[in-house]
């Protein structure tokens, strides 16, 4: 060994340390370690043996120089009668110049096949115990020096650090998955509980004779439904913290239209827009108020798009229609909700000025920092709501 060798070894360990920082594939990392160690020590064979507590043996997890069918398949005994077993159990390097003449050890079939004479083993020690052993072998007598063993141990320690990091990553991943499952379960419970509340409101409404009081409870039930639907959509989202606004509001309108006592066409123009529940629920409540209002007042008997005195809207070009569009415009989201019903005259606007629905719409628009306007339209009612894309 030349005087420059230790310097070259230190350089190789440093380079491998850098490589170990970003390599995420443990098998690739182990192979690289074997390759560097074999090269650094000038031996034809190196391998990493991973200890398997279940079988109380080692599996050759990675290696260089070996023929097909060795790495990933061949096992080695973990007892003290074999160098890797002794290195693991003593947690110390094990070196032999000539294993065929060393009374401590028994030759394995693999060593006989490859004519192994000299070898060196260093344990790969991790927090939980011993991961395995890094081993170099050669078919000629060789006395491995202390600097060479230290060189090997440097690699083994870096491997141990990566194995430890992998274990921590696995634990974190498992904890994240568990958190996700718990969150989804919680979502399911919230949705179910809102459905129970909605049912309770319905049961109570069924027992009220006063039409106004019953109607008020039904309106609250509709609002609870709108909130419950947001949770339902969120439960199916890839990202549990965000829901697709178009999918939510589209479904909300569909359920409102489906529950209407007469046919109304729904015209949806929905661009994808992901929002949190904090933004989605107020928007759902706003749309619920506006569309419920349309269904209640724009198309009722005596109304309809063309104002027939006796009938509600019929199918065909003059049938009742509710339109909803969700569009991204730069850093804002624009909502347009409209109907082609009888519209609101000044008297109707004045009458609804103090209504809860109107107050809710205004307050919720402010909550999401939105700007709500009612553009003039030829027929029916139109609301336009613009709000900043939330960055929460």
């Amino acid at each position, binding site marked *: 060994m030349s005087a420059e060798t230790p310097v070259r070894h230190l350089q190789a360990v440093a380079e491998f340390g850098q490589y170990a920082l970003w390599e995420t594939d443990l098998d690739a990392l182990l192979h690289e370690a074997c390759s560097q160690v074999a090269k650094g020590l000038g031996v034809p064979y190196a391998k990493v043996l991973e200890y398997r507590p279940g079988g109380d043996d080692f599996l050759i997890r990675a290696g260089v120089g070996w023929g097909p069918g060795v790495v990933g398949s061949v096992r080695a005994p973990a007892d003290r009668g074999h160098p890797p077993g002794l290195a693991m159990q003593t947690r110390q390097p094990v070196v032999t110049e000539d294993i065929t003449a060393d009374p401590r050890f028994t030759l394995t079939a693999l060593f006989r096949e490859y004519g192994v004479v000299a070898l060196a083993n260093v344990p790969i020690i991790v927090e939980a115990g011993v991961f395995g052993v890094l081993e170099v072998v050669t078919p000629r007598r060789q006395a491995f020096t202390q600097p060479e063993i230290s060189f090997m141990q440097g690699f083994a320690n870096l491997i141990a650090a990566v194995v430890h990091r992998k274990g921590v990553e696995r634990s974190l991943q498992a904890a994240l998955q568990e958190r996700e499952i718990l969150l989804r379960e919680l979502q399911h419970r919230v949705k179910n509980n809102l459905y*129970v509340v909605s*049912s*309770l409101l319905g049961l109570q409404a069924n027992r009220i004779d006063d039409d106004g009081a019953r109607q008020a409870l039904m309106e609250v039930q509709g609002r609870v*439904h709108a909130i419950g*639907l947001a949770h339902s*959509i969120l439960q*199916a989202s890839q990202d549990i913290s965000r829901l697709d606004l178009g999918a939510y509001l589209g*479904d909300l309108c569909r359920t409102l239209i489906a*529950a209407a*006592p007469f046919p109304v066409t729904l015209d949806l123009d929905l661009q994808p827009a992901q929002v949190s529940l904090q933004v989605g629920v107020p928007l759902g409540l706003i749309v619920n108020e506006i569309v419920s209002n349309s269904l209640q007042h724009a198309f009722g008997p005596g109304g309809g798009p063309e104002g027939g005195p006796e009938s509600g809207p019929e199918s065909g070009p003059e049938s009742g229609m509710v339109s909803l569009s969700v569009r991204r415009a730069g850093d804002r989201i624009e909502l347009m909700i409209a109907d082609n019903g009888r519209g609101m005259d000044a008297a109707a606007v004045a009458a609804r000025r103090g209504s809860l629905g109107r107050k809710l719409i205004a307050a919720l628009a402010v909550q999401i920092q939105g700007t709500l306007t009612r553009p003039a339209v030829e027929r029916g009612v139109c609301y336009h709501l613009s709000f900043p894309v939330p960055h929460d």
Partner: protein
Amino acid sequence: MTDRRPALKRILVVEDEALVALYTQELLEDAGHTVVGLAATGESALALAARERIDLALLDIRLPGGMDGVEVGAALRARHGIPVIFVSGTLDCETLERVSAVEPLACLQKPVRPGELLAAIGRAQS
């Protein structure tokens, strides 16, 4: 003017939330249907179906016990020829495939509005 009212049905409600089941029962009965029974599990639903004449089953999918709503629906169809409507939360692809295999008359997303449920039953009959 044609009579658009749906024919009245004998309906089995399979739902493990008691208040949701109770409200569904009242909705259906107010609309003139007969609720044959409320079952909170798949096993009790199948027991009811074995002794009652049932025209239609409304099924929640997530149920306590050994069977989920899709299995119950499949058994109701196979053993008694009872058509089903699923009422459920948003479904994953695998459950959706199983639901499709049962060929339900409708699949409604929870929470369901009262009018939406009655309209689905009406559509299922037309």
